[in-house]
């Protein structure tokens, strides 16, 4: 059986594990915080989404590099 395609995508898949774990940790902490103290939700929400955005940036850089570097 022949397989075509770019190895970059496998590398991207591996690198996305890190981003996935990071986003999971951010939202786990956010849900924990809101469950313990529901009135803190307004304060925690921007922090959670900032954490999401910063963590996700790594996965996004991986996606872009998997397209850009080599074919």
């Amino acid at each position: 059986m022949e397989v075509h395609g770019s190895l970059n995508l496998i590398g991207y898949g591996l690198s996305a594990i890190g981003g996935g774990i990071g986003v999971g940790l951010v939202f786990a902490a956010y849900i924990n915080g809101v469950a313990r103290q529901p009135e803190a939700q307004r304060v925690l929400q921007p922090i959670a989404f900032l954490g999401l955005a910063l963590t996700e940036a790594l996965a996004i850089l991986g996606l872009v590099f998997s397209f850009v570097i080599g074919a």
Partner: protein
Amino acid sequence: MPNDGHLQRGNALIALALPAETENGGFHAPGLEDLHLPEILPWGAEYGTGFGKQMLLVLLSIALISWFLVAASRRGAMVPGKFQFLGEYSYSFVRNSVGKDVIGERDFRPFIPLLVSLFFFILVNNLFGSIPLLQLPTTSHVGTAYALAGIVYVFWIGLGIKKHGLRYFKVATVPSGVPKAILPLIVVIEIISTFFVRPITHSLRLFATMLSGHLIIALSAAGSSFLLLEADGLLKPLGLLTLAGGVGMYLFEILIQVLQAYVFVLLTAIYIQGSLAEDH
């Protein structure tokens, strides 16, 4: 060199086999080139400045947003109807939970127009990806994202210089309370992360999520149509699974589109707050 000959023969075989496969109506996965639709008015298309579908959608989005905001605020009734409520709710969401909460009660007012117009522009341009017939998020073209993030980049650096003068670059890159020994290292990291990585990730985050979401929907649509129409008997039922997955991704994509507009505006507010802050 027997190995080389073998390799070359192998490559030639692959090159011969590929076109034959596509001619037989084999599965063609949608790729980046499917997002570059032919231009409508190809002026100077060789420089990449033609008038394409994305530009038409940007103009459409400006008309839609202006119509929506003017129509929603025309009759400022004391008891708002549904339409006025939608306009007021989305405006006050950006004003209060992004502007006021992040920049601070004291000096968030001058930035409301920037934040609200960025939010609506990105939101509508993202949602174009989920509207049938249009089906193309404008922000999945990297030029849109670069332009938006570039405006914000120039804006917050200019704001910091206006507020602190040239001392702003010291405020932005030299954190207080760091031991002298590791200060040079920290300053280099701060310069790279603040002035170089920040605008790149700010634009690529929007672009890459929209692009990948669009590709996932295109892939599930192409995969379902291939499996349902052209695959062998036993594989056909799998088409229903990919179709259901595609619909699920389509709904999930709407959530992502709204979320990315929020994240972009939230980061803009955080950068503005960072340039206004007295210390690092």
